[in-house]
C-alpha cells in the first residue's frame, strides 16, 4: 500500500503525510464549525477523533472526504491538494457516515457487485463473500438493505468500503449502532487493516474495552484542543499513572485544561 505514497517529498516524511490537514475552517452561515484545524496522518495509523456533540468531528470528516467544501485551509491526500485535484484525491478516501444510505433496488450482495464491477475488477467474488461472512451478513446477502437494522447497514457500508480498499478510511460514529460483540469484532478488523497499511480516522464517543488507537485528536467548538499518543496525552493533560485513560477522562481533562488556560495557549498546544 505504501508504494503509492508520492515520491516528491522527503522520503522520511512520506508515511506521515498520507493525509495532511492544514488550517482547515468551515462555516455554517456565520457559525464557525471548524477553525484552524491542522494535523497529519501517516500510513497505517489509527486515529480516534474525540469530542462532545457539536464539536465539529463529523464536519471535519466531511471536509476531508470532499463532501463539504472548507471555507479556509487545505486538505492534502497522498500529496494532492483536495481542492485542486478533487477527483484523483477522492479516489483514495472513503467516508462512512453514521447512517449510510443505499440503493433501494439492489440487494446487499449487488451493492458489493456493483461497487466492484463499476471499478472494472474481476474475480472479486471470493473477497466479497469473505467480507460478508466476516461481518455477519452472509445470510442476508439477497436482502434489500432498507430492511436492515442500523448496525447491519453500517456493516454493509464497511464491506463496500473495504472491498474498494481505500488508502484512507474515515468513519463517523462506527461503534454507535453496533452491539458490544460486533464492536469488539470491528475493532479487531480495524487493527488488521491498520497493520496492512490503511489509515483510519474514526470519530467516536466510546471505544471497546482495551482498545487503543495510535493517536487521539480531541476537539471542542471546532478546534483541536489536544492530540497525541495515549502516553503523550496522559502527560500533557496531567493525568496520573494510576488514572485510567478513557475517552471520558481524556475529554474531561482536555476541557478542564482549556477552561483554565488562556485561549492563545490552547491554540499553540493544539498546533
Amino acid at each position, binding site marked *: 500500500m505504501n508504494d503509492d505514497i508520492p515520491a516528491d517529498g522527503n522520503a522520511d516524511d512520506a508515511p506521515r503525510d498520507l493525509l495532511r490537514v492544514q488550517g482547515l475552517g468551515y462555516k455554517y452561515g456565520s457559525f464557525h464549525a471548524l477553525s484552524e484545524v491542522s494535523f497529519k496522518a501517516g500510513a497505517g495509523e489509527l486515529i480516534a477523533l474525540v469530542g462532545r456533540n457539536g464539536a465539529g468531528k463529523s464536519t471535519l470528516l466531511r471536509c476531508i472526504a470532499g463532501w463539504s467544501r472548507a471555507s479556509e485551509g487545505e486538505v492534502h491526500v497522498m500529496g494532492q491538494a483536495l481542492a485542486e485535484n478533487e477527483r484523483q484525491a477522492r479516489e483514495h478516501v*472513503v467516508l462512512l457516515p453514521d447512517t449510510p444510505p443505499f*440503493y433501494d*433496488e*439492489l440487494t446487499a450482495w449487488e451493492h458489493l457487485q456493483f*461497487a466492484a464491477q*463499476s471499478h472494472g*475488477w474481476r474475480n472479486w467474488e471470493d473477497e466479497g463473500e469473505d467480507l460478508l461472512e466476516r461481518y455477519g451478513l452472509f445470510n442476508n446477502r439477497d436482502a*434489500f438493505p432498507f430492511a436492515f437494522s442500523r448496525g447491519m447497514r453500517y456493516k454493509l457500508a464497511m464491506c463496500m468500503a473495504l472491498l474498494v480498499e481505500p488508502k484512507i478510511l474515515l468513519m463517523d460514529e462506527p461503534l454507535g449502532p453496533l452491539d458490544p460483540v460486533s464492536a469488539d469484532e470491528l475493532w479487531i478488523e480495524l487493527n488488521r487493516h491498520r497493520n496492512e497499511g490503511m489509515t483510519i480516522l474514526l470519530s467516536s464517543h466510546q471505544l471497546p474495552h482495551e482498545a487503543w488507537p495510535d493517536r487521539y485528536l480531541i476537539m471542542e467548538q471546532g478546534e483541536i484542543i489536544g492530540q497525541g499518543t495515549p502516553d503523550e496525552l496522559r502527560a500533557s493533560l496531567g493525568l496520573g499513572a494510576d488514572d485510567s485513560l478513557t475517552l471520558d477522562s481524556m475529554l474531561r481533562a482536555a476541557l478542564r485544561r482549556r477552561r483554565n488556560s488562556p485561549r492563545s495557549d490552547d491554540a499553540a498546544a493544539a498546533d
Partner: protein
Amino acid sequence: MTPLPLTDLRILFGLRWRQFRSGAVFWLRLLGYDAQASSWMQRVYVLYLLGIGSIWFFAMWAWGHDLALSIGQSLAPQTLAQLLERVPQAVLLLQTWAMMASLRSTPLKLSFPDMAWIVGSPLARSVPVLPGFIRQVLTRCILFGAIWALLTVLLRAPLAPATPLDSLRVVLVVALLVVLTWSLAWLLGILRLVYPQVSGWRWLWLTPLVLLPLAQLAPDQTLWPGRLLVLSVYDLAPLSALVLIALVAAGLVASFVILGARINMIQAADESAVYARLAALGLLAWRMPDLQLRIRLQQARAGQKPRLRIPSVYGKRAMVVRSAIAGLRHPSLMLVNALWGAGMTWAAGLILVNELPVPLWIGWLLIAGIAPPIGLLYTFRRDVQEPFLRQFLPLDGFQIFLADVLLPLAFLLAGALLAWFRFLQDLPPELFFEYLITGVMTIPLLGLLLALCGASAMTATRELQTRLLGTGASFGLAILASVLLGTPLAGLVVVCISIALLGGVLMQHA
C-alpha cells in the same frame, strides 16, 4: 353498545380538528404569522393575509375561467364530441381505481399516533371510520369540484357561456358521485377487514377491473354515472336520479359505519404502515415527493425476491446495466415515464393543431419544468445526491447521467413518439409528413434536454438548483429563436447548444 357512540365520535373529531389546526399553524408561520402572539399587529396581519389570499384566489380563478372559455371556444366540434364521449369512461376508470385501492389496502388509514392511542383506547372501533371517510371525501370533493367547475365552462363554451349556477350545479353532482364512489369503495374495503378469510384472496383487488370490459357489453349499466355528469353540465340530469344516488350513498355510508364496529384493527394497522410513515413526515412530505415515492416503493419491495440479476459486465457497462435493472425493478415508474411522454406530446399536439391560446404553451412548459416524470431521474438522484454512494462511482457526472437516464428516457420517448404517430393519424395527409419529421427530430432532443434540466438541478451548485429556471431558459430560448427567426431549425440549434452546456455542467459539478 350502539354502532356509533356520539361521545367517542365527538372526542375524535376534536382531536382531528386540533391536528388540522397545528398543521395550519405551520403554514401560517411560513407566511410570517405567529399564532401564539395575540398582538394587534398580528391580527391586522391576518386580515392582510386574508385579503391578499382572496385577491390571489379570485385572480387565479378568473384566469382559469377565461382560459377554459377560450379553449372551449377554440375546440373543433369533433374534438368536443370526442371529449364528451370519453368523460363517462374516465369516470368509470376512476371508480374502478377507487374500488381496487380499497380492496388492496385498508381505506381506514391509521397514523403511528392513531395506532398507539386510538387503536389501543377503549373507543368503539367504528369511531375512526366516519372521520376518516369524511376527510377523504372532502379532499376529493374539493379537487374534483374545482376541476369540473372549470370543465363546465369549457364544455359549455361552444353553445352558450356557463353561468356560476351551472358550475355550482355540476359541482353538487360531482360531490354526490364522489360520496357514492368512495362509500362503495369503503364498504368493500371494510368488508375485507371484517372478514379476514377474504383478505386471503390474493387477487381480490383486481376484480373491479371486470367493469372495464363490461362497459363495452353493457354501457348503460356501467357508464351511467359519467353520463349523468355530462347531462348535468347541460342541465339535463333528472332530479330523481340524483335523489336516488343520494339515498344509495347514505345507505352505503350507514352500512360501513355499522360494519366498522367489527373491524380487525390489527390488520388495519398493519396495512397502514406506508400511510403512517408518510404521515410521520408531516408537512415535509409535501415538499419531498421523491421521499414519498421511496417509502411507497420500499414497502412494495419489502419481502420480495429481486427480479433479474446484474450480469458480469465491468466499468461503464456495469453502470448502464445496474441502472437498467434498477429501472426494470420498478416497472410502474417506467410506465409512468411512457404515459407522461405520451400525455405531454398529445397535449402539445392539441395546442398546436387547434391553435389554442399562448398561456396554454406557458402552462405546458410549467408542467414540464415543475413536474417532470419522477422516474426519469430516480436513479441519478440517488447516485449524485448521496455522497456515500457517489464515492463508489468512478465516473464523472455526465457519464453517470447517461448511464442512469438511458432506460427511463427510452420509455419516455417511446410513449411520446407513439402518441405523436397516433395523433398524426387524424391530420390531413399533406400535413402528415411535415409533422412526422418535425416530431421525430424534436421529441428525442427535447426529452434529453428535459432530463438534463432536471439533472443539473440535482448538482451541489446552489445556483443551478432551480429546475424551472433551467427548463424555462433552455426551452423558452428555443421557442423564442423559432418564433423570431421563423424556422424550427433555429429552435433546434438552441436546444443542441443547451444540451452541450448542461452536459458540461454535469461533468463539472455532479
